[in-house]
Every structure is written in C-alpha cells, then in structure tokens.
C-alpha cells in the first residue's frame, strides 16, 4: 500500500516539477509552483517527515509564489508606464 502511494506521489512530484519548468509565463509558473509545493508536502508527510512538510507548505506553496506574483505585477506596471 505504502509502496503504491509512494510511487504515485513520486510520479506526481516529477510531473508537477516538469510542468513548472515548462510553464511559459512567470505568473502561471507561480501558480503551478504552488501546486508542485503541495505535492511535495504530501510526499514528505507520507515519508514521515512532518517537520519538513510544514516548512515546505509554508514556504513553497505560500511565500515563494506570492513573491513571484508580486514581482510580475511590478514588472507589468513598469511596462505599462513606459508605453
């Protein structure tokens, strides 16, 4: 049971990671990154590492995507001003 679950989660993490790399726009990438972080969180819980899972959840799915989104917003505003 655990082996099947682990195989599933590893696959999910690999797929989500690839999608993050292939996402073309940074704004979209931030959202996919957050989903990728969530997949990693579940993987860490199943691997019995709740401390790491908590860190991953807080930093990887909340803080980092938020920073990326705010940065793209700033860049978009700068472009708008120049036009």
């Amino acid at each position, binding site marked *: 049971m655990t082996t099947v679950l682990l195989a599933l989660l590893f696959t999910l993490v690999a797929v989500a990671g690839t999608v993050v790399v292939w996402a073309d726009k940074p704004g979209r990438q931030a959202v996919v990154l957050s989903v990728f972080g969530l997949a990693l969180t579940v993987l860490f819980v199943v691997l019995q590492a*709740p*401390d790491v*899972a*908590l*860190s991953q959840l*807080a*930093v990887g799915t*909340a*803080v980092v995507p*938020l*920073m990326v989104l*705010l*940065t793209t*917003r*700033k860049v978009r*505003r*700068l472009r708008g*001003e120049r036009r």
Partner: protein
Amino acid sequence: MSRTARMIVFGVGAAGVGVSLLLAFLRLPAFGATVHPYRDLSVPAAIQHSTANVISSINFDQRALDTLGEEIILMGSVLGAATLLRTARGESETAPPDEGRVLPATRLLGYLLLPVTLLIGFDVVLHGHLTPGGGFQGGVVLATGLHLAYLTGRYQVLRRLRPLSWYTYGEALGAGAFAVLGVVGLVASSAFLANFLPFGRFEQPLSAGAVPLLNFAVGCEVASGVVVLLAAFLKQALVVEGGSR
C-alpha cells in the same frame, strides 16, 4: 566566449556532476532500509534531554550551531532583499490603489481564517519541542497568516495590522536572543549553545530545557523577517512608481 565553447564547458561540467551523482547514488543505503546510524545516536540523545520532537532536539540542542547559521543566512537574505527593494532615486511612492474586486466569499474566508491561522502559528511555535513544527515553521505561518488581511482586498488594513518598524526590531531581537542564549549556555554550562536549563519531564509543556526558548527566538525572528520581506515586495508592487528603467 562563443556558443560552441560555452556548450563544451557546460558539457564537461554536466558530465562531471552526472558521474559524481551516479557514484554517490550507487553507495547510498537502500530506500526505506532499517539501518540508520544517525537515528541510533540522535533519538537516544533527544530522549535523554526530554525532547519529544527529536527533530527539534537535533535543530536546537544537538546541532544548534547549524540553526544559528541558518538564522543568520535568513536575516542576511531579508536585509539584502529589503535593501534592493527600497524606494530608489527616481522612484516615488503614490497612494496605494483602492481595494480591487474581491469575491465576498474570499473576503469572508480571509477574515475568518486570519485569527485561526495566527493561533495555529503560535501553537506550532510554542509546541515545537513536543510536536512537529517549531520556530521556523510557526514563524512562516504567522507571517503568511497576517497577509490574509491583504487577501481580503485591503492593503490599508494590512498596513495597520503591521507597524513595520516593530517587525524590523523583532527580527533583530529574535536573532540576537538566539545568540545570547548560546552565550548563556557557554557561561552556565559546557559550551556555546549548550542546553543549560533543567530538562523537565518528557512530553510536558515545560521540558527539553532551552529548546522552547530557542524555538521562540527563532519564531520571533522568522515571523518578523518574512513580514519585512513581503512588505518590501508589496510596497514595490503596489505603491512605488517610476524608476530609471
């Protein structure tokens, strides 16, 4: 450097990394094996110091110096990011935009979850020596929880909720308290960051010696640091206008 030369340099580097990784993987212990030399040493050491969460014992007791290093790295990163994102010459601050269009459901959820998240954050910090979590995790939860106020669509509410200067002091105080606790360990006990307090009874709120204190210091530092960091990003994205490029 021409494109071909760059590709050759990259190829050599990638091959080197690949071969080293392969050699390292071949000698790794099998996945899920029962032999863990590090576990056999660290778990008894944690129990000896009445620390129910072994991870906390490793982070704040057995390898507390590493955590001090990590904390200083975090502080340096926040300082660097805040310096880079400050309002530069040629930039000016405007009035923040009015609240955007926010779904009522989002706003309700934001208001409801704000106190709940803060409570969870404090819980994770204060029980770090007993259950999964600790100063770092709880600190990030506290900082992100605070930003639910922004999710409700009001930058002004968020601004009033976090007088930014308090958090800059909080960050310095947290990091300083960690180092001071380390020096106290040196004076009162055997070594820098040694666990100098009585260990108490296993699984009780007051146990694990200095671990809860160090957790609290880290929680203070991380929560404040992340708030300062996100504040710098929010200010640049919402109120700073202009700029040379």
